[in-house]
């Protein structure tokens, strides 16, 4: 009978090697190791074995059963792996096909720049506040030391609003919020004010009648022009790169004294002189200065005790410089083909 055990063994192992699918394996398992399989049959035939050989026979069958079970497990793992790799091979795709897009929109470049600039100033200790766009002439001009009929008023070509007794305008700058802020609080004052402004101005590639400014104001004891210079330099380097050189020069605005024009070295030509900087090597990015004592007096601050500085910058210009936008009109034509190019997460 032991010949029979060996025959079954040979046959089972040969067939197992042939079985190359899960189904064939299952069938093999049933045939040999199943309840009515060959091994069960062999064990049943123990009765036909002479009694003295039975223990050895029984051991041989059991050993075979164990061997086959082990070989089965091994083979099964092989087959499964091979089947999986076949499936995976069949599932191969052209990985260059487009993905299923997650539709994400974008913020307007002016909003992005306002966020970037105000965040820099927030971290320098300035609070963001906003104010009205439709504004009294008092706040837009008089309180800022720009009297009626003064030639300085011509600098701001103003759009006026229909009113009765009081002069009401579309604010031509964000500076009225200097007055409103100081009227509401006592020093120390440190604010930045983003917002829309309007001018009665012919529109061309660098001028818009509707634009955005960011105003800054710091007032307290011991606020100096050296702080102004340091703060603006820090700002410019954070926005335009640490390697930027800065230039402070004298300029005139009626609500500051001394007045400042703040420029950075041209990033397009590195100060050599090019079309963007009109050959000067410098790009003016904002006006600033020490708050005029009369302005402090207008809001009830004592100019002998307090000093302050203020600055104002055009947001569109910053975007144009930073990203090389050639024409300011692109911002408000609202063309999605332009705006979509700014769809990015802020750095």
């Amino acid at each position, binding site marked *: 009978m032991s010949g029979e055990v060996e025959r079954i063994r040979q046959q089972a192992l040969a067939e197992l090697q042939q079985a190359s699918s899960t189904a064939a394996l299952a069938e093999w398992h049933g045939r040999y190791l199943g309840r009515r399989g060959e091994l069960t049959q062999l064990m049943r035939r123990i009765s036909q074995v002479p009694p003295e050989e039975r223990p050895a026979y029984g051991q041989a069958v059991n050993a075979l059963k164990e061997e086959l079970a082990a070989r089965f497990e091994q083979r099964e793992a092989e087959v499964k792996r091979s089947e999986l790799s076949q499936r995976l091979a069949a599932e191969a795709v052209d990985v260059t096909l487009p993905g299923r897009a997650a539709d994400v929109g974008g913020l307007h470049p002016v909003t992005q720049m306002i966020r970037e600039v105000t965040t820099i100033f927030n971290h320098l200790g300035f609070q963001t506040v906003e104010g009205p766009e439709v504004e009294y002439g008092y706040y837009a001009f008089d309180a800022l030391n720009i009297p009626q*009929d003064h030639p300085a008023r011509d600098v701001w070509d103003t759009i006026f609003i229909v009113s009765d007794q009081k002069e009401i305008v579309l604010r031509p700058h964000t500076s009225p919020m200097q007055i409103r802020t100081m009227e509401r609080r006592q020093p120390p004052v440190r604010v930045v004010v983003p917002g829309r402004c309007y001018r009665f101005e012919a529109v061309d590639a660098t001028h818009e*009648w*509707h634009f955005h400014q960011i105003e800054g104001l710091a007032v307290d004891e011991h606020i100096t022009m050296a702080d102004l210079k340091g703060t603006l330099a820090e700002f410019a380097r954070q926005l335009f790169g640490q390697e930027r050189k800065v230039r402070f020069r004298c300029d005139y605005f009626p609500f500051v004294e001394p007045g400042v024009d703040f420029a950075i070295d041209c990033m397009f030509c590195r100060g050599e002189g090019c079309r963007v900087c009109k050959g000067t090597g410098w790009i003016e990015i904002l006006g600033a200065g*020490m708050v005029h004592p009369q302005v402090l007096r207008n809001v009830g601050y004592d100019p002998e005790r307090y000093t302050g500085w203020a600055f104002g910058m055009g947001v569109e210009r910053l975007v144009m410089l930073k990203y090389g936008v050639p024409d300011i009109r692109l911002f408000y034509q609202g063309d999605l*083909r332009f705006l979509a190019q700014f769809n990015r997460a802020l750095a």
Partner: protein
Amino acid sequence: MKVPVRWLKELVPTELSAREIAERLTLAGLEVEAITEIGSTWDNIYVGVVERIEPHPNADRLVLATVDAGTHRLTVVTGAPNIAPGQKVALALPGATLYDGHSVEPKLITLKPSTIRGVRSEGMVCSEKELGLSDEHEGIMVLHADAPVGVPLREYLGDQVLELEITPNLVHAFSVVGVARELGALIGQRVRYPERAPLPVGGPEGLVTIEAPDLCYRFVGVVIEDVKVGPSPWWMQQRLQAAGMRPINNVVDITNYVMLEWGQPQHAFDRDRLREGRIVVRRARPGEKIETLDGVLRELDPDTLVIADAERPVGIAGVMGGLESEITEQTRTVLLETANFEMRSIRRTARAQRLRTEASARFERGLDPNLAWEGATRAIALFQQLIPGCRVTAVVDIYPNPRLPRQLCMPRSEIPRLLGVDFPDELVLEVLDRLEFQPELRQEDGRAVIIVQVPTYRSDVTIAADLVEEVARVIGYHELPEALPLGRTVPVEISPELRLVRAVQDTLVAAGLTEVITYPMVDEAALRALLPGAATFPDRYGLYPRPERELVRAVNPIRPEWAIMRPSLLPSLLRSAAENLKFNRAVAIFETGKVYLPRGLDELPDERRTLGCLLAGARHLRDLYHEERPVDYFDLKGVLETLLPRIGAPDLRFRPLTHPSLHPGRAAEVLVKGQPVGILGEVHPEVVEAFEIDPDLRVVFAEIDLQRLLEVGLEPPRLRPVSRYQPIDQDFAVVVDEATPATEVADAIMAGAGALAVSVRLFDIYRGPAIPAGKKSLAFRVTFSAPDRPLSDEELARLRERIEGHLRRRVKGELRR
């Protein structure tokens, strides 16, 4: 203002280049916007002297001129009528670049030797036009007799011109002398002032009368007789042209020259054409007119200050003279006006007459009345130089309130207090001295002060801060250190409104919308177009009811279509969509802008921060995975259902809305905590069409009042415990009347399930033979979960029963089995 560099260097001799001068002036507040070159093309052109003139053998109107230019000696053929032996001329050699004298447009040509009527011409003597100096091509340009023969013309005549921007405070620098003073102070050099003539005062009574002393502070009148009017000398014409003025005749040119040099405008009258030969300075009388030098007949209102003779106006004071009394070749006696006027009056008149002149630009900045004397004496020196034989026969100077230098006292500590850095006393005093402020450092009440006498031409220096600026700008702002502010800080709190706007923007971007910023102004046509048929104005503008009052309106809009501050974002976004649909099939945009709701006429409007969202055209473009489909109401509703809970708006509801601009069956009011905060709906096809969008495209719009949202109260998330046990999903198919809103069915389910239902989601709507006509079956998947236990079958059965009860009672709903 244009300042020729040669002129400037005559007053302040310096080796600095034009570029270096421009740099110094710009840093100190006189911005040089450009430097232009005169003579940059003048290669191979030299100063020559005409040795002899011979007739041309073959032509009567041509001559042969032999010109000596030192190393070059040439014979040229010329037809210039004014050429004569001994003249100094500009001689161009072959290879020189010249402007074509016969071309109307400026056209550069290169000179070649040529043969004219059989005689070889080796070069050319040049006209002003050929040199690019003017349009003059009648004859050659004759140089001054001093011109050095053999010197390149560029060295002799070439110049650079600084173009300065004169800010409103810089009236003291609105002249060559003024810029020279600035430059002198910056580089530490005294100005060499031009020569002036002594002028003894004396003249007949009544030569000049000032009837409006409030508008005319000073009047210097000088009578000059035996004047011979003719062209002014070449050097003066050259300077006038370099500074941007046209030479007229010697008398007028003198007045313009003095204005450019000193900043003091003047006017010369032909005295013989003044009635009674006298001047009255007064306000215009009703109905008075004048024809000004530009040939325009102008009506004068009674606010206008005029220079009149005994009868009628002969000039608009400080702006422009009259044509009738202008200087002509026949003029023999000149009455020269050098006056000072009140600045605001001049500004008003120049604006009212729309006549900005070199004179008015200076007067309206507030000229120093003392300058009038300097102007008059300088002019007389020039008269005597240019017109030998002319005689000053009368001088009057009416100046009732002479302006004196202002004394100013600045605490010494003011410099470090404002600048954050200090400079040595000697340096500060030297700078102020260079500015001619006569500084004096003193102790007063135990503290150091600097006393200065501000020259009267520095009307911009009135307070200590002005002096600090003077010190800082002359030393240079580059000397200031960079620091950061010291001292007390303020809490950097960001307002709820700003935070809300930011959250709204970020969420909408993540939801696939792109932010636009539109002009916040509209016109009446756009507002009417919000009503189908556009017969009148709708009773609502987007979210907001039409105000009782007039909308906020500009007096002087840039364009008529930007005249009214918008009362809603709807027209702005429709316009943006219309533009974008020309180039895009899918538009998904939003704006977090303001709307402007009127209050009283003299009150500022209510500027409300509002969100507008608009979807139009296709929702998804067709690609590998999606079919394209048109947007509809539910696309934007889904956006709001994402947005509002994310920003903490609880209890979001939508209720049907009738709105003039929206689809009658696809519009809803948006409620938070039962309060209306916005609207949502498909835009009415007729409104869509009125905004030039294809009415077959669906446009969905929503407008949310963000300020209202804050007033209603946004809430932080209310946390509920997260269960450890498996949630269980059960489906409920509810048959209700067709008219029953789905929300109410969902509400009934929620009410029945109580706290154990964590979500109720509608996933199918069925209408058909399996249910009665006029009914619909809504299939909801409800997820149940208890925080503290697994839900048993019995509990679920009880819940189902309670839900069934609520459905029956609240919406007359039956569960389908």
